[in-house]
């Protein structure tokens, strides 16, 4: 079988340029046009135009359109190579495919321009505006604009399709340079903040233009530099990670320790060089990371889809506010944060039990709906007039003091201190997740996720075990709530909208369910770059489009990469079972052969009777 495979998979042929799948091109070209028009009409180009990425030429607004023909050009010219079938050689034909697809998209955009110029339907479509027209025509008249749109889109489609055609090294250099430039321009505020801390302002002054964005020259230099870097370092990172994975025993332990020390040192030292805004951002990321780690235990490990996770966040927050604030309406013991924390753990645990006990016996969708309900109930209770004498209703509880450590006070006005506090708790949460994952309890959670009925038949008390997952998750969320309240200095029911639950869930899913590293990456990417439900991220301009992007990202991830950004090995095996099975089969062949020969030797020439 393997012999036939190797003989046929190498076969390729050179298709003629005119040999196009026109239907496919029309579909993808139409999609391209649709996407371009949609993005234009929801106001992204105009809304994001102020954020400049590369000084005179590229703003985030333009980028919101330009990536579309590029990516679709790439997708449309990609061929699925079937095992044992002759594959077309990438070449001129694919370039034409990409070019035409991009051009069709451009035509769509040009039609939109014509429409905007001739009709006025601003009434329902707010963004059917002259601003959009002038933006897309570069303020040079309709004719020029239309031609430019088609030409640019066609060119980008061509570039997208050329990714398949150019040799691998060129591809790597180009993508390295492109991603690098994007990263540098998106992270501009972070970089300039950092450079201020290190007294390197002169460097950023050269790199970035006054109005924001990389200057043209510096972007060219950067691109060259990054391209060169990719040649030097290409493949090294990958081989280093595989080497790390293959390490065993003591060596692995040593490597892990070194890695841990480096990361810990970075986490401790870096904030000292960061300004207020960046520290605030990191603190927010940490708060959501803490929540996401808790939810990861509930959803990722035990498989309980909890959509009302914000309830525990709220309980943690309100408990802290009541116990520490002098303005707590009914009961104000004004305890120290440390003592409060102990009580928070107890109360969150009890809430977890109380909410969990009725919910946990349900399965799947029912459970999700009921938890969704409980999440809202908790918020509405805190909001209600009935409990207003105790929790202040919609006015909430204000005047919550910071955390008094004796030598310093952790307050929201000093985000760096808050970050350190969050860091401690995140480290704790990571430790808890990690240890539990590889314990008797973690295995039981996984078994329940896999098949609850069988888990029970194998002697696991599923109700208690699931409740425990609920309680551990609740406690981690309550920590986050407690820190949030101490940081902000007040607590309102509106901080605990259903949206928080959803966003944490998206963080967990996009990052990679059941994987600690994935959750960390997920919170940095989503909360750090896009922003939380109320907290702005690095791309503050996205504030208006945040939920749209969250939604689009979720749909895309579910379709194309359900294992998340950083998948756990297990999860990706599970979701790509077929490929994995194939690998195992190929690798396992030698093992099987050995085994078979052993077996034959054992059973002897008769072969009928197995060994006794």
């Amino acid at each position, binding site marked *: 079988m393997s012999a036939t495979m190797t003989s046929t998979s190498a076969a390729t042929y050179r298709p003629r340029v005119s040999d196009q799948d026109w239907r496919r091109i029309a579909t993808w070209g139409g999609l391209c046009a649709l996407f371009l028009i949609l993005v234009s009409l929801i106001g992204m180009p105009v809304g994001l135009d102020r954020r400049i990425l590369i000084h005179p030429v590229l703003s985030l607004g333009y980028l919101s359109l330009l990536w579309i023909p590029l990516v679709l050009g790439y997708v449309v010219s990609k061929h699925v190579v079937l095992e044992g079938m002759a594959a077309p050689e990438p070449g001129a034909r694919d370039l034409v495919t990409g070019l035409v697809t991009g051009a069709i998209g451009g035509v769509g955009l040009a039609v939109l321009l014509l429409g905007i110029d001739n009709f006025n339907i601003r009434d329902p479509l707010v963004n059917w505006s002259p601003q959009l027209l002038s933006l897309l025509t570069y303020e040079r008249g309709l004719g020029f604009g239309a031609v430019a749109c088609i030409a640019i889109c066609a060119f980008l489609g061509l570039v997208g399709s050329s990714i398949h055609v150019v040799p691998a090294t060129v591809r790597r250099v180009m993508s390295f340079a492109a991603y690098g430039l994007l990263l540098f321009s998106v992270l501009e505020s972070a970089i300039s903040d950092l450079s201020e801390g290190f007294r390197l302002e002169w460097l950023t002054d050269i790199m970035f233009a006054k109005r924001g964005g990389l200057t043209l020259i510096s972007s060219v230099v950067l691109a060259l530099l990054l391209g060169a870097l990719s040649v030097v370092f290409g493949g090294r990172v990958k081989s280093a990670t595989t080497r790390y994975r293959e390490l065993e025993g003591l060596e692995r332990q040593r490597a892990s320790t070194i890695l841990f020390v480096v990361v810990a040192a970075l986490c401790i030292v870096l904030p000292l060089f960061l300004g207020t805004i960046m520290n605030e951002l990191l603190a927010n990321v940490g708060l959501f990371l803490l929540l996401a780690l808790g939810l990861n235990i509930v959803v990722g490990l035990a498989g309980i889809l909890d959509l009302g996770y914000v309830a525990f966040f709220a309980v943690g927050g309100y408990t802290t506010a009541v116990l520490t604030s002098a303005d707590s309406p009914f009961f104000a013991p004004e305890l120290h944060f440390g003592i409060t924390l102990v009580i928070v753990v107890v109360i969150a645990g009890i809430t977890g039990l109380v909410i969990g006990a009725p919910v946990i016996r349900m399965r799947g969708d029912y459970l999700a709906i009921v938890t969704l309900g409980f999440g809202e109930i908790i918020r509405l209770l805190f909001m209600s007039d009935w409990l207003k004498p105790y929790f202040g209703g919609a006015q909430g509880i204000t005047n919550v003091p910071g955390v008094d450590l004796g030598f310093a006070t952790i307050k929201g006005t000093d985000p760096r201190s808050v970050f350190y506090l969050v860091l401690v708790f995140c480290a704790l949460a990571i*430790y*808890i997740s990690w*240890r*539990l994952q590889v*314990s*008797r*309890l*973690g*295995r*039981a959670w*996984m*078994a329940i996720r*896999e*098949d609850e*009925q*069988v*888990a*029970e*038949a*194998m*002697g*696991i*008390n*599923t109700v208690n075990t699931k409740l*425990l997952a609920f309680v*551990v998750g609740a406690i981690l969320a309550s920590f986050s709530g407690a820190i949030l309240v101490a940081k902000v200095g007040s607590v309102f029911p509106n901080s605990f909208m259903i949206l928080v639950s959803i966003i944490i869930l998206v963080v967990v899913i996009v990052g990679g369910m059941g994987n600690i590293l994935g959750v960390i990456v997920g919170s940095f990417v989503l909360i750090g770059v896009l922003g939380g439900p109320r907290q702005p991220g690095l791309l503050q301009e996205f504030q208006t489009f945040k939920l749209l992007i969250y939604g689009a990202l979720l749909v895309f991830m579910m379709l194309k990469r359900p294992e998340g950004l950083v998948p756990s090995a*297990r*999860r990706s*095996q*599970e979701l790509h*079972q077929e490929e*994995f*099975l194939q690998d*195992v089969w190929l690798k396992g062949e030698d*093992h099987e052969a050995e*085994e078979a020969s*052993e077996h034959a030797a054992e059973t002897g020439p008769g*072969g*009928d*009777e*197995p060994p*006794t």
Partner: protein
Amino acid sequence: MSHLLEIRNLKITFGGLDALSGLDFHVDEGEIVSVIGPNGAGKTTFFNAITGMVEPADGDIIFEGDSIRGLEPHQVTGLGIARTFQNVRLFPNMTVLENIMVAQHCRTSQLVFGALLQTRAFKREEEEIRARAENVLGFFGSRLIGYRLEQPAFVLSYANRRRLEIARAMATQPRLLLLDEPVAGMNPMETAELTQLIGKLRTEWGFTIVMIEHDMRVVRDVSDRVVVLDHGIPIAHGSYDEVSTNPDVIEAYLGRPAERHA
């Protein structure tokens, strides 16, 4: 001496259908008893009833002298009854080793704090769990150990999945093992091997075994007694030879013999 497992007048109904109606059954310590019968005879329901997965409408199930009727499945497993499933139900995305380790849940006790503080008791227990798991897997020769330990269960071949399921049931440290069609789908060589192993389960591991099986050669080779079910009623009972010649049994399997034409 009292029986290890005794079932009296067991009755199970699904809606109006009597899946089991008035079943009496017993197993003694160290026996291997086969339950056979045509499709839909109620064999698997019988296992489900013993393990607490379905609630009997009437009758009693007595294990080691105490009634276990109405207990939760995990409690039944805790008392020492373990089962396999007809349509193999492993934890497919857990590794082979984890599948066995998790089955020892009811024999171990460490919870959150042991794991977080890495207490000595926790570490010792983890080591014991692992050692026992490897011991159990070693029962199947080299088939489930070595590089296989870290593979997810879903990559295993069909026969290995069946073996792993038996291993998982063994890992719960039962006294009574319920095997639901252990050799279904195996080739003749694998069947012969597993038949031997079922014998060893009794002699080396000391399990008492109740087995549902359609492969009559296996039934003949390993069982001390055979119980035949049809439509939820035991229709025959005895040694293999007695049962296999019983006209009622032949009728249940093959139908009434046609009138012979001249």
